């Protein structure tokens, strides 16, 4: 979040605090006699923090599509990601693909261990340390949070030029070719829906981290995904990277993806 917006939020917080003393605030509270909880601005005390969030995907634990479906479902459901039958309008934050598609350019397209060939590989935004999508965006609607390295989207600033989609070498981004709301079977009121004409992608569940929760896909994975701080030597992700052979997508491009794959 940039400083100007943060200032607006602070101002809002201040005025809310000013309101909370006199009875005016009681009218807003659910029950008049209950002491009103102080409105909260910014991350809560339980918020999870890191210097650079990263994910490790333990791919041998994924045997078939059945293992990935609950994760994709969890992500798309809580983030109000629409489902379109028309492939052109497709929106996806997290999905499974084949080995040679996930690691195109890096791994052999032929003569692959049979089991690996049939294994589903989850792909999502890599929250690159050096993200070309951020470099390309002409409005800073795509930006990298300095505090924890998450590459975020401001749906209200995005002009829909799709330069970031051309710049992302991982196909991680989707564009709302039409109003997504009619395509939602279920709407999570805790998370914003989008409008037509803006880009979206995986947010590393920034809204859940702020509440002290792990990303939805990690939670649903029953240990197949691990999430943590890449720059903290003692973190779980670093532990896994230290003890397992991991690869990342297209490292030759220098974007430094923060999603690691145990193969």
């Amino acid at each position, binding site marked *: 979040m940039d400083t100007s917006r943060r200032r607006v939020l602070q101002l809002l917080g201040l005025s809310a605090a000013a309101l909370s003393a006199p009875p005016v605030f009681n009218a807003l509270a659910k029950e008049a006699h209950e002491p009103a909880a102080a409105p909260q601005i910014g991350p809560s005390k339980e918020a999870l923090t890191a210097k650079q969030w990263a994910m490790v995907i333990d791919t041998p634990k994924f045997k078939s599509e059945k293992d990935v479906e609950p994760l994709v479902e969890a992500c798309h459901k809580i983030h109000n990601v629409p489902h379109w039958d*028309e*492939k*052109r*309008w*497709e*929106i*996806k934050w997290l999905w499974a*693909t084949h080995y*040679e*598609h*996930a690691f*195109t*350019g890096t791994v052999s397209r032929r003569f692959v261990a049979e089991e690996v060939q049939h294994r589903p590989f989850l*792909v999502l935004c890599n929250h690159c340390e050096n993200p*070309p999508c951020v*470099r*390309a*965006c*002409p*409005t*800073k*609607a795509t930006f990298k949070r300095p505090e924890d390295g998450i590459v975020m989207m401001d749906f209200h*600033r*995005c*002009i*829909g*030029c*799709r*330069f970031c*989609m*051309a*710049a*992302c*070498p*991982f*196909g991680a981004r*989707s*564009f*709302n*070719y*039409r*109003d997504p709301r009619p395509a939602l079977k279920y709407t999570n009121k805790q998370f914003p829906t989008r*409008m*037509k*004409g*803006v*880009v979206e992608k995986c947010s590393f569940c920034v809204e859940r981290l702020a509440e002290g929760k792990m990303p939805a896909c990690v939670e649903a994975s029953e240990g197949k995904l691990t999430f943590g701080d890449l720059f903290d030597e003692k973190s779980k992700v670093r532990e896994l990277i230290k003890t397992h052979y991991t690869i990342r997508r*297209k490292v030759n*491009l*220098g*974007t430094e993806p923060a999603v690691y794959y145990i193969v």
Partner: protein
Amino acid sequence: MLELAVKGSKRYYGWMALLLGIAGVGFLVYLKQLDFGLGITGMSRDVSWGFYIANFTFLVGVAAGGVMVVLPYYLHDYKAYGKVTILGEFLAIASVVMCITFILVDLGQPMRVMNVLLYPSPNSVLFWDTIVLNGYLFLNLVIGWNVLEAERNGVHYQNWLKPLIYISIPWAVSIHTVTAYLYCGLPGRGFWLTAILAPRFLSSAFASGPALLILLCLVIRRVTNFDPGWKQIQSLAVTVAYAICINVFFLLCEVFVAFYSQIPEHVDHLLYLFVGLQGKGAYVPWMWTSMALMVAGIILLVNPITRKNELTLIVGCICVFFGCWIDKGLGMISGGFVPNPLHEVNEYIPTLLEGMITIGVYALGFFVLTILFKIAVSVKEEVRA
């Protein structure tokens, strides 16, 4: 001088009404796009830029091509071009107007376009493209208008214009360079990731821009009392001949690098365009047509006999113009997006509706062009009489 644009023959009014009608239809379809979203186009998650951006890219070239008459006239004092520089400048204005319109119709949230200026992001090439395009529009408007007005009043143009004229020359190069940088700085898009992209864009610009200008000059010769001059047209034709040769040479350099190195990320896009990939190849006939047109253009324009014959000159210029349009418009954008970053082939086929919007934008551009050319030609006729 604007009054000159409203005094015209029946034929002139008929032509303008026709253009406005086409632009109007395009606008209605655009309203539909505003309401529904860009889903009415053939663009997708994988091919996220299409016809609009392709035509934008091509027209930036046409705009930059105008400098091919400005430069010899002002820098080398090539007097003969005195008659056509204004046409080059006005063609540049109309082209930039179309470019900006194409960008606007391509935006998902066009009413937020000012965010580019509200949150200036110097690391984004699109930010710079906005600046150079608008700057070029401004320069050509100021220069073209004032020089023409001075000519009408029978005086030399004001001295303060001189620096602007000099600036406008490298500026023309900059608009197409920056536009090439939109593409060639992106990691993971092997087709565009080549240092020769900007030179290649410029060479095709210096071929297609002057080729269109020649055709327009020939039209002006027919329908007005102003003659841009056969000598001028011939000089322009030589420019086109050289530029199209260089363009094809650059293309062959690309082909060599891709196919001799055999790096899949570079080869596969060319394969997709020229022979098809994974059983898909909607662009194959188009690309070969483009190659045939460019070769035909070279033959007709390099050879002095066919270059000096009006009919073959016209055919040659049409070949060059459409050859470049297919190569740079259709092929350059789709070719870069297919195969996608996961090496899957999902093709892009423009829809009828986006075609109608595109034609509408062209009609708008030609409307602006006709007004500007009408003014220029009327002044020239006046001065001569």
